[in-house]
Every structure is written in structure tokens, then in C-alpha cells.
């Protein structure tokens, strides 16, 4: 200890710093795309991967039979050779495969497809099972043909079931056989460690160094290379993808600005925009999301069981305030349950409570709705002279004073937008004298309370990734789904709606289904079990100095089309 001399350590530190400066020049091959990701992917096991980050990686490896066209969102044959053929007699779909190869060189055959579907059914893989349980039989007449027999006509089969990723029978056979013998087969399957997934996609995983990065390289057997699909000439032209894990978006932004990553693969907070827009070699993309952020009411108990109250609350909510301030303008006001971006199914003619009104008019309108429904006040929000004043002591039509009215929101760490929206809504409801309290809760407690125990007044939640098929409309409001853990969280029960919903799920004619879905939207917005608030815009940024050719699409630029078409910019200078 006595020999310890800090001078030496300082000198050493200075030396280190000097070396650091010298060693700063990083070299990267021209074809290497460096991507910043917020968190590590959860797993490479496709059956466990329910998180966005795993899906981002795995979607470049495992491929579905059909993709969506980036512009029209129509189905595009991907592993399949053409669109499925439907035979109404036998209620069967026939899919023919294109000649694709797995990344180990083996051929993709109809038995791989059948194997995948059977695996989902046998193990009842969560999130997939509901899309496959109505398939009664699968036939593989030859190596390139698969035929699926359905119990009854299902509108979602084409768009929902046939878009799941296909896995290789050879890779999974043994795992499945072992898992079958275990006490908890599903858990066994989910917990299986996949080191190097075998897929048919444009890239294969070369290395995953946990906590640091993932390295993917081009799949030499990728079926699309050189082909033109959906009018697009496919590559991939990039040789490597390096996915770096950042943890905090601020630092990832700095990395993008500094040039240590080429793409920022998750939503950017609006605060950075001014800065990023000013930088020449960065391009910012704004993509629509297929998302629904909404306020849900509990229809099982007073006071939110009263549609008048729900309409009054809907009137009081200033979507413009939420979008222009809390979302900084990067979102669209939603009026129906289906996002306006989903043009085919979206119905614009629904009731738009209080759209474009100012604060006072909202209060007046809500006051009118409530007075008409029999509500009374100790101090009403509108005085005798007709001016808006602070209100208090609202009473229900039966004369009882309204009890504490709670607005549950996710916590600030999960989504600050919804937490702050909840606070603002609380203030707006207080304007008409409602004893409203916004209460952010840990996400799983919130869901437990809303979805499990049904113990709440209202909540604000979001579905960040709605499918393009509108089947969720049925799932959210079907009476049969009003049960613990069921998706009808509001407890909405309407036989008229149920009938339409069931019809829509079996309508094989697209236009017939469109009409049904529109009618459903109208009913829902009349009864407001959910009140849609906003659909945020996805902001993504890339560097423009090394790669070009990003494809914009619903859900952003990180789609398969971008990664197969992206080209390095040659830098000869």
C-alpha cells in the first residue's frame, strides 16, 4: 500500500486515453449493415419468440408461405408458388410451393409445411393455435403440394393462418419426439435452445454474443436471390447484418449520428426529430402503424355501464391535445376500432364524439348528454348564465353520488404517453365534476385487473400490432370472449353484434365481409365499450451514406422487402 503511487495510475490512464484515440478508427466491410436494437432478442426459438426483437431477427430467417405487398398489403406468394385455391365443396385450400431451399441446402417440401401445422396443433402453441385449430386434416399429395381441410369456412385462414413461418421438419423432428414424452411437452418445446436456426430466409445467423451483438450473413440458398417477386428484384445485396444491442434509445441516436450504426430499428421519440432532420446523411421515415390506442370501459358495473356516461366521457377526451402535445404530432386521431390506414376495412362514417371541439364546447356537450340521461350536480359545470365553471358532486341518475372513478394506465416506464394521457383525461373528467383518478399500474398488474379480475372502471391500453385482417374486431367484442383472460375486456354483450361477428368470420366473399365489418364498427362506436384515441406514427431513421433502397410499409422499414433490396453505396473515393 505504501508503494502505491497514483501518479503512475494517472500516467497509465493518460496512456490508455492516447491509445483509445489511436484505436478509434473502426473498419467495416462495405456490405455490412449495422443495426441498433433496443433490447436483446428473447430467444431464437421461434415458438417462444413473442417479443418484437426476436421477431425482427427471426423474420429474416424463417419465412411464411405468403407475405404482404408493401403498397397494397395484398397477399403475395412467398414460399408458395401462387395464391391458395379454395374449394368450397370440401372446404379445403390447396397451396403449391415454389422450389425453395433451407439454409442447410435441403429442399423445402410439402411435408415441412404439414409438419409445422401439425406441430402447432399438437403442442397447442400459444398465439398460433387459434389460427390452426379449425384445420381438420392436412394432405401432401406430392412434394410441392399441401392441402388443408377446414372444419367450416374461415375468412381468416388465407390471411392469418397461411402467413405463419414454416420450420424445417429435419431440424425439429427429434426435438418434438423428445418433448412429446415429457410431462410438460409445450414447456419443453418452448425451452428448447436453438443455437443456429435453419430457415429459408435471406439471412442466416452466424453468431450471437449475448449482451452485445448478433451477426447474420447472407443465406446462399435463399430462393429469392435474382428473382422478381411483386415487381421487386430481390437480393440480398448486403453481405452481413450486425445487430447491436443498445438498451437506451438516446445512445442509439448518438450512435446513428456518429455513424456507428446505419439503422435505428425501433420507434424514435419525437424529441430527436429536429436534430435528426438537420443532419444531411440521416433520413427519417414516418410509417403508419397498425395499432389501436384506446380507452376501455367496464360495462359490467356502474357507472361505466351507462352508455350515456361513456359517450359523455368520449366527448370530453381531446384527441387533438393528446396527439399534438403528448405525441408531438406524430400520430393520427382514431375514430373507429380499425386504423384508418387499413383502408379496405376501415369505416369512416362512425359516430365521432366531440371531434374538433374546443374545451368549453366539449364540457357543454357532455353536460347536455349527462343532464338528459338524468345526472345531476351539487355544482353543475354550467351555471345559470351559461358559463363554464368548476363543477363538483356529480350524481348518477339514481341519485347516488358517483364514487371514485379510476382510469388505469400502463406505467410511465412502459409507455409515458399513455401515463400522461391518463393524467390529462383525469383533469378533463374533473371538469364535469367526476371524481376521476388516473392510476398508472405495473403492466401485468393492470392486465390482471382488467383482463383477469374484471375489476376496474376504465383503462387505457394499446394494441401495438394489429393484423391487417379485421378479425380482432370480433375477438374484442364477442360475448363469448367475456370471461377471465378473454379478450372482451369490457364485457360487451350485444346479440346483434355477435350475430354479425360470427357471420363475418365465415364470410368467404370479401365484399360481403367488408359490409359486415363496417356494420360492426358502427355498432361498436354507437355503444362505445372502447373509445379509440390514437394510432401513433412510427418514426425510424437510417443513415443515407452507406445503403440505399429502404422500402416503406405499414409497420416501418424493417420489413423483408427492405432487407432483400437494400444496396450498399459504393464508396470508391
Amino acid at each position, binding site marked *: 500500500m505504501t508503494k502505491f503511487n497514483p501518479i503512475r495510475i494517472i500516467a497509465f490512464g493518460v496512456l490508455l486515453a492516447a*491509445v483509445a484515440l489511436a484505436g478509434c478508427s473502426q473498419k467495416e466491410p462495405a456490405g455490412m449493415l449495422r443495426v441498433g436494437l433496443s433490447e436483446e432478442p*428473447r430467444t431464437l426459438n421461434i415458438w417462444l419468440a413473442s417479443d418484437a426483437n426476436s421477431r425482427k431477427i427471426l423474420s429474416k430467417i424463417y419465412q411464411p408461405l405468403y407475405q404482404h405487398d408493401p403498397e397494397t398489403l395484398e397477399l403475395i406468394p412467398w414460399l408458395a408458388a401462387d395464391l391458395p385455391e379454395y374449394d368450397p365443396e370440401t372446404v379445403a385450400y390447396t397451396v403449391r410451393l415454389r422450389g425453395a431451399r433451407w439454409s442447410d441446402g435441403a429442399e423445402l417440401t410439402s411435408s415441412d409445411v404439414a409438419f409445422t401445422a401439425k406441430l402447432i396443433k399438437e403442442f397447442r402453441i400459444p*398465439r398460433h393455435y387459434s389460427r390452426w385449430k379449425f384445420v381438420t386434416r392436412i394432405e401432401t399429395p406430392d412434394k410441392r403440394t399441401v392441402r388443408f381441410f377446414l372444419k367450416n369456412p374461415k375468412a381468416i385462414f388465407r390471411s392469418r393462418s397461411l402467413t405463419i413461418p414454416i420450420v424445417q421438419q429435419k431440424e425439429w423432428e427429434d426435438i418434438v419426439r423428445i418433448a412429446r414424452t415429457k410431462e410438460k411437452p409445450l*414447456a419443453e418445446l418452448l*425451452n428448447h*435452445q436453438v443455437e443456429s436456426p435453419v430457415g429459408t430466409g435471406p439471412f442466416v445467423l452466424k453468431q450471437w454474443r449475448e*449482451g452485445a451483438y448478433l451477426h447474420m450473413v447472407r443465406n446462399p440458398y435463399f430462393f429469392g436471390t435474382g428473382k422478381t417477386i411483386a415487381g421487386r428484384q430481390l437480393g440480398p445485396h448486403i453481405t452481413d447484418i450486425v445487430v447491436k444491442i443498445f438498451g437506451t434509445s438516446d*445512445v442509439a441516436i448518438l450512435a446513428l449520428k456518429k455513424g456507428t450504426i446505419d439503422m435505428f430499428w425501433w420507434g424514435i421519440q419525437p424529441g430527436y426529430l429536429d436534430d435528426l432532420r438537420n443532419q444531411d446523411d440521416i433520413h427519417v421515415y414516418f410509417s403508419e402503424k397498425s395499432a389501436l390506442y384506446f380507452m376501455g370501459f367496464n360495462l359490467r358495473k356502474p357507472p361505466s355501464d351507462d352508455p350515456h356516461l361513456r359517450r359523455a366521457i368520449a366527448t370530453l377526451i381531446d384527441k387533438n391535445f393528446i396527439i399534438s402535445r403528448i405525441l408531438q404530432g406524430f400520430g393520427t386521431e382514431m375514430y373507429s376500432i380499425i386504423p384508418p390506414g387499413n383502408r379496405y376495412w376501415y369505416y369512416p362514417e362512425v359516430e365521432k364524439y366531440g371531434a374538433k371541439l374546443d374545451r368549453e364546447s366539449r364540457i357543454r356537450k357532455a353536460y347536455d348528454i349527462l343532464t338528459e340521461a338524468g345526472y345531476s350536480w351539487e355544482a353543475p359545470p354550467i351555471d345559470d348564465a351559461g358559463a363554464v365553471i368548476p363543477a363538483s358532486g356529480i350524481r348518477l341518475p339514481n341519485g347516488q353520488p358517483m364514487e371514485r372513478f379510476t382510469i388505469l394506465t400502463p406505467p410511465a416506464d412502459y409507455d409515458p404517453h399513455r401515463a400522461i394521457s391518463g393524467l390529462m383525461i383525469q383533469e378533463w373528467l374533473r371538469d364535469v365534476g367526476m371524481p376521476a383518478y388516473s392510476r398508472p399500474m405495473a403492466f401485468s398488474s393492470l392486465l390482471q385487473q382488467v383482463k383477469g379480475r374484471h375489476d376496474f372502471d376504465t383503462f387505457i391500453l394499446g394494441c401495438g400490432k394489429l393484423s391487417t385482417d379485421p378479425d380482432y374486431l370480433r375477438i*374484442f367484442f364477442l360475448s363469448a370472449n367475456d370471461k377471465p383472460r378473454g379478450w372482451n375486456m369490457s364485457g360487451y354483450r350485444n346479440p346483434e353484434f355477435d350475430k354479425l361477428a360470427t357471420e363475418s368470420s365465415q364470410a368467404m366473399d370479401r365484399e360481403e365481409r367488408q359490409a359486415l365489418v363496417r356494420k360492426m364498427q358502427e355498432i361498436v362506436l354507437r355503444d362505445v365499450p372502447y373509445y379509440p384515441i390514437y394510432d401513433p406514427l412510427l418514426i425510424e431513421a437510417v443513415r443515407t451514406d452507406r445503403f440505399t433502397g429502404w422500402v416503406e410499409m405499414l409497420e416501418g422499414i424493417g420489413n423483408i422487402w427492405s432487407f432483400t433490396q437494400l444496396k450498399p453505396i459504393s464508396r470508391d473515393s
Partner: protein
Amino acid sequence: MELRKYIFRRLIEIAIIFFVILTVLFLLFRLAPGDPVTRMVDPNMTPEDAEHLIEQLGLDQPIGLQYLYYVKNFVTGNFGVSFHYGQPVADIILNRLPNTVLLFTTSIILSALFGIFLGKIAAWRKGESTDTWMTIGALICHTVFLPWLALILIWLFAYKVGWFPLTGMISAEVWIDPEAGFLEKAWDIVHHMILPLGTLFMIHFGSYLLIMRSSMLDTLKEDYILTARAKGLEEKTIRNHHAAPNAALPVVTSVGLSLAFSINGGALTETVFTWPGIGRELVFSVSNNDYPLAQASFLLIAAVVLLANLVVDVLYAYLDPRIRYE
């Protein structure tokens, strides 16, 4: 003999404390509303799917039975499978632990050495302006808000000046490069470590400096220092050979006692710097309801702190024979 008995007794105490923590933790996680299945907000997840998954994860069993399994597994060294990663918890922890140990121990050792050295000087110059400024500096370092400081350091040194990489522990470019040798990789880690290390260092060294200063002042009042002076020994010798080694003892204890507190800072630092360690993993697993991983990481931290305290106590007894233990 006595020492062995003492250590044995302490180990038993530690085992009991550990067991209590283990039980409390189990209860906390199980009594909390919600479960890892609930938080999967995906309309494709039907109630039947959820029930099935809960059954498969073993979450449907009576809580008593779950507890028995949990204890049995812990005793047999099976820490279960992470709900989130689907990997054995032990693997994840073994993967993250070395990173934490590297960052944390380096920072503690460096800051203790620096703190002792500067504290010695400050005490020696008590009342002079050197002392005052050192003390004020140490206080500022010790009380600065860590995550905020960390972010500003990143902005300044990694972005503006560009001396260091932004965050993380290694750069992919170096490790992918087949030509990169061991030295290059080692340097890469060191390079990434400097900023988080600096942050932790700042927070800790201030407190060690203050403790050393106080302890040194006490030591200087002792008779043997007076004796040494009377013998006409050189001041520097007295300071470095007589006073400092004894005065450093409380710093050693405080390293042990404040370990739990330092771990808070460690977790924050790891989180801000995306350092792939236990602290960051714990914060992450907690927000994901990943009970097995969160429990195991927390217990690991508790065990380390408990054992560190024991080591410090024993060490202290060796270094200072006046200490008695009951």
C-alpha cells in the same frame, strides 16, 4: 480453532438469513398480481392458450407445492428456466456474472486505493485548503446523481469528444473480424469499460476518501504516533508506515458494509451503459415478471453481500487483534 468455530456459526446464520430472504422473495413474486402469461397482449393469445401455458409453466399448482419445488430446486442447484429467455437461469447468470465482477471489482479496488491515498493526504493537511477542497470534491463526487452523470459523461466523452465507445461491452466490428487477435479484443473491452468504470469510481472514491480522512485523523491522535514522533522519525515515514496502514482498516470494513448500497449504483451504471451484467439483467427481468431469473439474481446479490460481510469481519479480526467477537 476459535476462528473456525466463529466462521462456522456465521455461515449457519448466513444460511438462515439466506433462507428467509429466499422465502420472502418467493412470496413477493407469487403474491404479486399478474403473471408472465398475462402480460402477453396479443389478440392471438386466446384464454385457452393462456391457461395451457400457465399449466405448462407450472404456475397453476398450489402455492405451497410451488414453494417446495422451488426450495428443492434451489438446494440441488437447479435455478429453473427463465420465463423470458427460455434458458436455464444458471446459464444466463454465468454468462452475465463475469462482466459484473470485472466492472464492479475493478472500480471498487481502484476507488479504494485512490480514496485511501487521497484521504491520507487530506488528513495530513487537515485545516489547509488542500484538505478543504479535497473534502468538498469528495462530497460532490459522492452525492452527484449517478444516472444523470453517466448520461452526461456519455454525451461528452463518447459523443462530443469521441474518445470512448458509446455503450456496451464490446464492439461487434472488432469481434467479428477474424483477424482480430487477443490483444485487440482485450483492448476493446478495456476501451468500453473506461466510462462506466469512471462513473462508479467517482461515486465510490469520494466516500472512501472521507472515511480514510476521518480514520487517519483518529489514528494520528494515538500514542504510538506520538512515540514515533518522539523517536524523531521522519514525518513521511510516520504517515505512510505507521498511521496509514492502521487508518485504512475502516475503509476495508466500509467496503463490505456499503456493498449493498454500491450494488444499487452498479445496477444503475450497468443499465445506463448497457453493460451486460447481473444488475441490468435484474432490472430487466423484474420488469418482465421473469420470476426465476429475478429471484436468482437477487439471491446471488444477497449471498455475495452476506459473504463479503463475513470476509470483512474475519479480515478485520486478523488485521486488528483488539477486536473481539461474541
